[in-house]
């Protein structure tokens, strides 16, 4: 049911964990299934220097989280902000229709992390 890419990222997820000195954190939960994700960003000169994730979710959710972190690591905040859940799913070689929402989890967590980053920029 899952592509090889999904299984690869599920088995060997990239960038799992926490960043204790994160500049921004994005959290989200899926309305559809109740799964949750947390994303940590370390940002320097508006560029994502480091990124880590934690996910409570299905195989597709874990793979999407992992793929997303690979896609945006080293990118500027503005570049990262343009990544959609469809981009993540495409990069994974597609997801089963019922599992498309799982890639939303990752995309939403990133959007929330970016909002968190920007709000801190303004206040700080």
């Amino acid at each position, binding site marked *: 049911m*899952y592509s090889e890419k999904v*299984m690869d990222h*599920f*088995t060997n*997820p990239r960038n*799992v964990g*926490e960043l204790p000195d994160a500049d921004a954190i994005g*959290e989200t939960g899926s309305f*559809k*299934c*109740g*799964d*949750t*994700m*947390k994303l940590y960003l370390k940002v320097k000169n508006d560029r994502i220097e480091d990124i880590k994730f*934690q*996910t*409570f*979710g*299905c*195989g*597709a*959710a*874990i793979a999407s989280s992992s793929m997303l972190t690979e896609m945006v690591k080293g990118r500027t905040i503005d570049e990262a902000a343009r990544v959609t859940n469809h981009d993540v799913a495409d990069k994974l070689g597609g997801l089963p229709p*019922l599992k498309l*929402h*799982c890639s939303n989890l990752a995309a939403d967590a990133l959007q929330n992390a970016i909002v968190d980053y920007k709000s801190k920029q303004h206040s700080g």
Partner: protein
Amino acid sequence: MQSRLVYMDHGATTPVRKEVFDYMAPYFQEQYGNPSSLHAPGREVRQAVEESREKTASALGAKEDEIYFTAGGTESNNIALRGAAKKRAKPGHIITSSVEHHAVLDVCKELENEGHRVTYLPVDQYGRVDPESLKEAIEDDTFMISIMAANNEIGTLQPVRELGAVARDKGILFHTDAVQVVGQLPVNVADLNVDFLSLSAHKFNGPKGIGALYMRKGIKIDPLYRGGSQERKLRPGTENVPGIIGLGKAIELAVSEIPEKKKKLEHLRDRLIKGLLDIGEVYLNGHHKERLPGNVNVSFQYIEGESVLLSLDMEGIAASSGSACSSGSLEPSHVLSAIGLDHSMAHGSVRFSLGYGNTEEDIDYVLEKASPIVERLRSMSPTYHAR
């Protein structure tokens, strides 16, 4: 690469046993007559079909003319419930439980759309229906009560005898979906006070797509299909002869081995439960004693069932899950909700269903693999770190 296969999904289906397969084999190419035919090839097959009916009847403590062969558990449930409803002149009231298989629940939903009223009885934290609550739910026009003998997800056994007695006392038809029980535990229709009982061969090492409905003598319901006079018109259509032959052999074997198999499976089950619970923050779903001999259903806190299944699968372990993410729908299973599990615990549920062929070594292997899998997934989980 992984070459070992540990099959622990016998609640979904089981392999056909060699003895059963060999017994069925002649009925494809050599004994191909239509049992309704008058000629010798037909008569021989008719006799074999009736022998299968005798075996099935004797396995349930029933009479031959109370056994109707069907296309499986789903069809048996449909014939009983819809057939009883169709027989009525006007809509009435049905009682079932909130933990039934969809092959009962969805029939009830449809009957509601057709004007019948349905009460879905709640269950306790173990998934059991209280006979008192059944008594209280009965209305003047209650014509059918359907409560499963054992739950397919969490393995909980219902007090069928007591529930059946309540129905019998009020003169209401009582059906039990015994698909998970037949071949695993002794079943006697007279003892259980049932009027209808559904069974399915592929759950006890028989072939798929064949089952039976026990209907107590004297009861009349309307058939769902019209056609020939097979199965006394209750299920017309040329019989699935190899299936029927396989069912008869499989039920005969399974029932004769129950005492031995029950003891073995209960031992393996309890070892597996203990080992999984020892991982920590793992909880048993269903009752610790009143459960199917081969059923283990646990919730791994902080992680999601589908992720566990995928990881087990990579180690060659076949299990299943009632978690939302692995089923077609996104809702966690109605059974886990009915026993009061919250979202995250329902999410982490995994079912291992043991059967004929599982060994002590299989349990060792699963326990050896489960612990690092759980640890790995927990290390990725935000809820685990936030606990």
